[in-house]
């Protein structure tokens, strides 16, 4: 039996949309938080001992954005810190807080208010090394183009295979109330869309969305008291490959293979291709889902795997039944917590029209986005 030390006992999501007009980011956080605390059946002002937010100052537009996090999630005068990383890294911190005895109930929050950000591409450009990798006049997504081509060269996955990911995920999102970018598309629609950084097309890129997700994490004892459907966090690990573009292994996602190896060993997973019922993983760009499927050991040849339908909701290993970031929108640091949210719904059997029949165990994985080679892998199970 996998470890049952730490469990997710409550989840909440705000509305997701390309523009959440009229609501501030704090109000989105509040919306997600009250839902998560109702779901967990807790009084946040008395029950929660530690809070973790995941946000980056540049996306927030505020140089001390962490200072503005407490009140709207019920954390006034409580231990709170902000992780400058994706939401799954926040979940890893929550795991450690529970295991270390900091608190038996920890809250993780992450959000996106990308519709407030007028300089999205400039911020992406500022992520690059100033001396060697900021290329004036060149779209910062150039690295995604370089990586996609290198991945295709090394893996044998075709451009059609990559486009098939976008078709699948946008179709899956049709059944998801958070499916902001749900669409019924043909391969040709994706392949013929505007080329941003060849071979990458606009149809293969997730588009920005607003939203907040809050997750409540508890010790085993507390979880059994609070919930009749705890979702066990039985393994989690994180990893970074080279920080410099010139040294990155663009063919494969080493952060995903390394972090999954550790997370799997914690969770007793030896055959990921058969032991998981489904996967919610990073698909910031369509080719990334393929690269991640391979690096996570879910299939050897991800291109063929997806193109032949084996990653569909009724396939051998459903991948991003929720629609992923391609179907529900990219929420910057919160994208990974959105995957957690969707995975928990599936594991509890509460995914409504998205529900798949086998839903006991899954892998959730994140990537921090360009220009990083950083990511987290987690194993979640309902028993």
């Amino acid at each position, binding site marked *: 039996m996998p470890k049952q030390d730490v469990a997710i006992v409550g989840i909440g999501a705000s509305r997701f949309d390309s523009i959440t007009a*009229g609501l501030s980011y704090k109000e989105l956080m509040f919306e997600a938080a009250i839902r998560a605390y109702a779901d967990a059946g807790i009084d946040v002002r008395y029950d929660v001992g530690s809070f973790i937010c995941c946000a980056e100052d540049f996306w927030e537009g505020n140089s001390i954005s962490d200072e503005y996090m407490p009140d709207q999630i019920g954390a006034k005068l409580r231990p709170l810190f902000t992780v400058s990383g994706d939401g799954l890294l926040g979940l890893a911190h929550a795991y450690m807080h529970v295991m270390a005895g900091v608190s038996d109930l920890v809250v993780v929050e992450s959000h996106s208010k990308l519709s407030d950000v007028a300089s999205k591409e400039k911020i992406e450009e500022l992520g690059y090394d100033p001396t060697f990798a900021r290329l004036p006049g060149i779209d910062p997504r150039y690295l995604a183009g*370089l990586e996609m081509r290198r991945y295709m060269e090394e893996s044998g996955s075709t451009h059609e295979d990559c486009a098939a990911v976008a078709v699948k995920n946008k179709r899956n999102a049709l059944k998801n109330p958070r499916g902001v970018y749900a669409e019924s598309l043909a391969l040709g629609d994706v392949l013929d869309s505007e080329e941003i950084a060849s071979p990458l097309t606009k149809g293969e890129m997730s588009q920005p969305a607003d939203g907040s997700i809050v997750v409540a994490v508890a010790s085993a004892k507390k979880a059994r008291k609070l919930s009749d459907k705890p979702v066990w966090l039985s393994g989690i690990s994180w990893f970074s490959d080279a920080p410099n573009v010139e040294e990155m292994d663009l063919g494969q996602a080493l952060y995903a293979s390394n972090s999954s190896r550790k997370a799997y060993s914690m969770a007793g997973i030896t055959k990921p291709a058969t032991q998981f019922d489904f996967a919610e993983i990073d698909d910031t760009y369509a080719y990334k889902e393929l690269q991640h499927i391979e690096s996570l050991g879910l299939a050897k040849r991800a291109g063929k795997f997806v193109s032949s339908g084996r990653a569909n909701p009724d396939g051998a290993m459903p991948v991003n039944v929720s629609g992923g970031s391609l179907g529900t929108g990219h929420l910057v640091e919160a994208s990974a917590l959105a995957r957690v949210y969707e995975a928990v719904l599936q594991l509890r059997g509460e995914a409504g029209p998205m529900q798949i029949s086998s839903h006991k165990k899954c892998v959730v994985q994140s990537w921090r986005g360009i220009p990083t080679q950083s990511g987290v892998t987690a194993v979640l199970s309902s028993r």
Partner: protein
Amino acid sequence: MERITEGDQIRRWNDHIPLQWKYTAGVAGERFLQLLKQGKIQASVCRSCNKTYLPPKIFCKECFAQLSEWRDVPSDSGYVYSFTAVNGEIIALVKFDGVDGGLLGRLRKGREGPRIGIKVKAVFRRKEDRKGALSDIEYFERTGV
């Protein structure tokens, strides 16, 4: 919760952040950029790990040793590791024989389309136009087809 129901009631506060930095290239970066100005490419070397760093650094990420050995990298020993067409240009990550790492730059369009693995050389700007920046390499171009 109370909601805004009229679109014209929505207020947004417009602001911008005009900031500037002066990024220090550092010991390794300074040496590399000064040599680039002379039309030379140099990498730093860790003998014990058999690693050659480009762009150079003064520390080895494998064994954490301080590095002080340098190696000339022939500017015509490059090959295309990957490339992308973006904003009307071709951007390539060029690696060099026997070197870890590489350099980003523009790839000059030739008669044939670029491919992964083709051999390329760095073409420098005229001496008087060089500034001690990566852009001193004007572009990479294919060598002997």
